[in-house]
């Protein structure tokens, strides 16, 4: 038992407290990874051989309706127009249930596997033989912000580390010039709950997400380059300034060991200097072929921006970024003619119609592109929403659907996922998940497993508990989802 080489996370190795010593000497896998990241000596060994090296996660905020997309409910068609809740006992999130409302799009079977997909996703439907559907998802909350937190951090409370932060903490970075965890928000803005969806929570701040601004292609990171009016700011002066700043910050840090934010900020300046070179290269899509540009439909005014996000995700993955998160939708507002995310209270056909076409094009292009480049085998793609929508209609015209924390569908593809399967089920109407019920815990545990991480071993001691992404309520890895 030696403390040689084992850095206690975020602390001065020479100032170990008794508690720190016991904690570190106990052998933290994450501690080793952190030491590797901070000293750049190479990566820690994963717990077992990984199937996936990286993750691309597509998040559809607002609440995607499972009964209009991937969860086919013939019984709902039979009961169309009948009261969903004849006894009048149920209260949905923001309304009383209306009549049973079958899918607004026709369902068909697709691919060799015969999975059901609605006509909202004609392009994704051609990819079903690569996809595994998790039909029995549930959330602990029917609120957007907390729901997003749960699917991202495993907890509905704000302030916990995002899955991308956990994965980076566990596995370190593969790229010297790009951040390990990148978030690509919708060009309209951040998702419900904002930036902390990609936060590091109680993990050291170096693991938080770096956001690439997808709205301004020439300036992917806000203020990465100085405005033109400052002639004195040249690359040479910048370099000298950074060296001076580093010295100042090191002197300041000496009596303040253990503050991970100071360390993260010192690292951030160094990363920013490297990003000035690497970010323009990664976001410059001119080198992509015409076929690729068409595949992602980049020129389309509505579909193009999300296609661009998906193409950027592929380029980041190719360059060793460990975890990329793409948002298909922004924060809610009712002021727009079409909702800025999937939250279709008033008009499912209008809002899911819009966002469905966006997701269908970008996500199918991403799957096909990854596959043709041989990247799908070791890239895990996850697509999820924070909850589903009700099979009973909402609103006077019955055109909307209310929130449904009791049931939704997520899907995974690539990275060692068993393709073409459906796992779990909702009841006959799609109101509640009833068979092999899943929460974020099992999805996260399965994703970590594919990355070579035992979810019970990836921990961080905080508030008297060895905290983990998957919490303490879940059922662990879903073996049926593994190839």
């Amino acid at each position: 038992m030696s403390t040689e080489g084992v850095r206690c996370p975020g602390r001065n190795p020479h100032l170990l407290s008794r508690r720190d010593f016991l904690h570190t000497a106990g052998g933290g896998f994450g501690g080793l990874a952190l030491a590797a990241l901070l000293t750049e000596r190479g990566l820690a060994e994963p717990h077992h051989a990984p199937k996936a090296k990286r993750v691309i996660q597509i998040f559809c905020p607002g609440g995607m309706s499972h009964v209009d997309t991937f969860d086919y409910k013939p019984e709902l068609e039979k009961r169309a127009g009948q009261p969903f809740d004849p006894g009048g006992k149920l209260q949905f999130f923001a309304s009383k249930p209306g009549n049973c409302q079958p899918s607004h799009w026709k369902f068909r079977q697709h691919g060799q596997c015969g999975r059901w997909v609605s006509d909202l996703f004609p392009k994704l439907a051609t990819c079903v033989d690569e996809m595994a559907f998790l039909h029995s998802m549930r959330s602990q909350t029917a609120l957007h912000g907390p729901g997003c937190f749960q699917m991202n951090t495993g907890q509905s409370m704000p302030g916990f580390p995002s899955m991308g932060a956990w994965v980076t903490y566990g596995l370190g970075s593969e790229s010297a010039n790009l951040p390990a965890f990148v978030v690509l928000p919708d060009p309209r803005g951040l998702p419900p709950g904002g930036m902390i969806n990609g936060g590091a929570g109680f993990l050291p701040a170096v693991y938080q997400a770096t956001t690439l601004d997808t709205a301004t292609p020439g300036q992917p990171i806000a203020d990465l380059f100085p405005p033109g009016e400052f002639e004195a700011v040249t690359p040479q002066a910048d370099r000298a300034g950074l060296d001076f700043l580093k010295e100042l910050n090191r002197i300041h840090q000496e009596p303040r060991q253990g503050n991970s934010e100071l360390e993260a900020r010192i690292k951030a300046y160094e990363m920013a200097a490297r990003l000035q070179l690497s970010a323009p290269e990664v976001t410059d899509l001119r080198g992509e072929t015409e076929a690729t540009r068409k595949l992602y439909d980049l020129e389309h005014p509505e579909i193009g921006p999300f296609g661009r996000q998906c193409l950027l995700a592929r380029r980041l993955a190719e360059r060793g970024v460990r975890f990329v998160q793409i948002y298909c939708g922004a924060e809610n507002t009712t002021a727009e003619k079409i909702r800025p995310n999937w939250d279709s209270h008033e008009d499912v056909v209008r809002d899911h119609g819009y966002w469905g076409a966006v997701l269908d094009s970008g996500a199918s292009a991403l799957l096909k592109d990854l596959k043709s480049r041989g990247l799908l085998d070791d890239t895990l793609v996850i697509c999820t929403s924070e909850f589903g929508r009700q099979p009973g209609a909402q609103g006077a015209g019955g055109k909307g659907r209310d929130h449904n924390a009791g049931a939704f569908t997520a899907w995974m593809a690539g990275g060692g996922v068993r393709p073409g399967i459906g796992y779990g089920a909702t009841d006959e109407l799609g109101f509640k998940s009833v068979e092999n019920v899943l929460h974020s815990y099992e999805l996260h545990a399965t994703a970590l497993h594919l990355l070579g991480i035992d979810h019970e071993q990836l921990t961080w001691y905080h508030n008297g508990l060895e905290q983990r992404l998957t919490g303490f309520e879940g059922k662990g890895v879903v073996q049926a989802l593994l190839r």
Partner: protein
Amino acid sequence: MLRQARYFAERIEQEAGSSPSAQVPRAFELAFGRNPSERESKLGMDFLQDQGLFAFCRSLFNANEFVYVD
């Protein structure tokens, strides 16, 4: 940030004159509320002479000591 650094440099020049040995301590006083240590003083003078007062002021504004309250 850059604009404020330019204003700051102008103020230092007004208050401390053109000598780096007076500019460095005045800038530390205003930015951090303390005098520079010997090490910081030497580091600051060297940088200021190489890169100018504006770059020096910009660095102070970006320093962790300026951004984070203890």
